[in-house]
């Protein structure tokens, strides 16, 4: 089987995909990008925490205009995963307003990105309706 790598550092592949946030050890603020210190309290120590795989759609937009090379339309969204807000696209749903409702239940899934010249497959994530 070809080697698979995640699209971003905070996606962990395996049997079930997981999103792993960096949580401030002092104030519990959560981040998905590389941090120098906590934006909330300034502390510099973080622990890795797994974000729940299921959540609800907090807000969305159906993006119909994008730079060259980005397939449209796509559903951009913010998903509330047990109190942690996550940015991601809604997938496995026709991108039409009547198919997406605020508060709808969704779960994390993987999305293929493509393979590089060495045959390594990059894998992204999205949220699909439950």
């Amino acid at each position, binding site marked *: 089987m070809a080697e698979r790598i995640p699209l*971003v*550092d905070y996606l962990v592949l395996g049997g079930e995909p997981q999103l792993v946030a960096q949580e401030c050890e002092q104030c519990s603020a959560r981040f998905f*990008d590389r941090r120098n210190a906590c934006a909330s309290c300034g502390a510099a120590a973080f622990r890795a925490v797994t974000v729940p795989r299921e959540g609800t759609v907090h807000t969305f937009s159906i*993006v119909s*205009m994008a*730079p*060259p090379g*980005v397939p449209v339309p*796509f559903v951009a969204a913010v998903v509330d995963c047990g109190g942690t807000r996550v940015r991601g696209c809604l997938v496995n749903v026709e991108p039409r307003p009547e198919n997406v409702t605020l508060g709808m239940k969704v779960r994390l899934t993987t999305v293929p990105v*493509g393979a590089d010249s060495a045959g390594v497959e990059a894998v992204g994530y999205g949220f699909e309706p439950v």
Partner: protein
Amino acid sequence: MAQDVWILGISMTRFGKHRDKDNIDLAAEAAAAALADAGVTMRDVGVLATGSLTGGSSSFGQLLQKQIGQTGIPVFNVANACATGATALRVAIMAIRAGETDIGMAVGVEKLAGAGLLGAPGQAPAGDGTWSRRGRFGAVAPLEGRVGTDSMPGVFAQIGLEYGHRYGGASFELFARIAEKNHAHSTLNPLAAYSRRFTLDEIMNDVMIAYPNTRPMCSANCDGAAAAVVVSGSRLRRMSPEQRRRAVKVSASVLTSDPWQDGCQVLPDVNTLTRSAATQAYEQAGIGPQELDLVELHDCFATAELVHYDNLMLCAPGEAVGFFESGATWRDGKTPVNVSGGLESKGHPIAATGIANIWEICHHLRGEAGDRQIAGARVGLAHVIGLGSACGVHVLEKAAA
């Protein structure tokens, strides 16, 4: 006690396409007109603050001086996304309040006609053809369309729908009606980039950019400049009766950035810093939102205008939808909002916007707004947001005399 500060002169160029003029030409045109409006010359100006995100120089203000007068004064070149113009003005005001000078000028300019979609980078080529991690998310490929969106229409669409999710009632049609209002207002503004009235059907059936924002619900990229001359109260008192009569008091000048909010790094939070800026501004001015005769707020998208009714406390918390539906924000309503046509029709030459909205307010307070004059206007508020974020709020009052 810090000096009180007044707008002595202010101007904006026509917004739209200026094919035969570059950023320097437009900035020089606005600056010269603001000086003439103020009745002073560059020799009187003690500080210059300028902004231009498309100006192509980190010393843009000095390039401008070479066209309007090199007098050796300090120049501040500022950038703060869409709040750049308000930031330049804030710098000039701070210099006067600090007692460093009596007269300052702020200039913002942009060449953006035909710029297209802002905010989202395209898909970069893969380099040597193997995945490598880049940036603070360690991404192996561009994230636009793979992990949501950074495009401005999509970000502000989510900001509007988030408000609807929290409080209910914010439909596609409601947002389209906000754009209908601003386009209707623009028909009275000869300096607007677009001044055509749209029907609700036309707006809803136009090209969809990012649901629920169609093209006429998005700010118009265009060329334009604006400039303001500010003066200390003590200097103004020694000026001519005509200058004193037309001067507009800066009753509040506030700039804020994002305080930490849960989720604000996933989707920008334009609410908290705006509410904070408004709270500070009302306190500085000793004026409440009910006393405002007109408001120019940052309607970069129709979905943004709705949330700022609430953030600027023009309505009770959670009541923005009902507030709009009451007709309050039309030019004949209780609190007219964006009688210039707003960014959706007047246009949004980024660094000029935060001064042009103040020009609009001053125009009404001076009773010089012609066909679109809000009768008897005495107090106005101008608001801008630069995503990332920076928020500028200015409260302006007609001279008492």
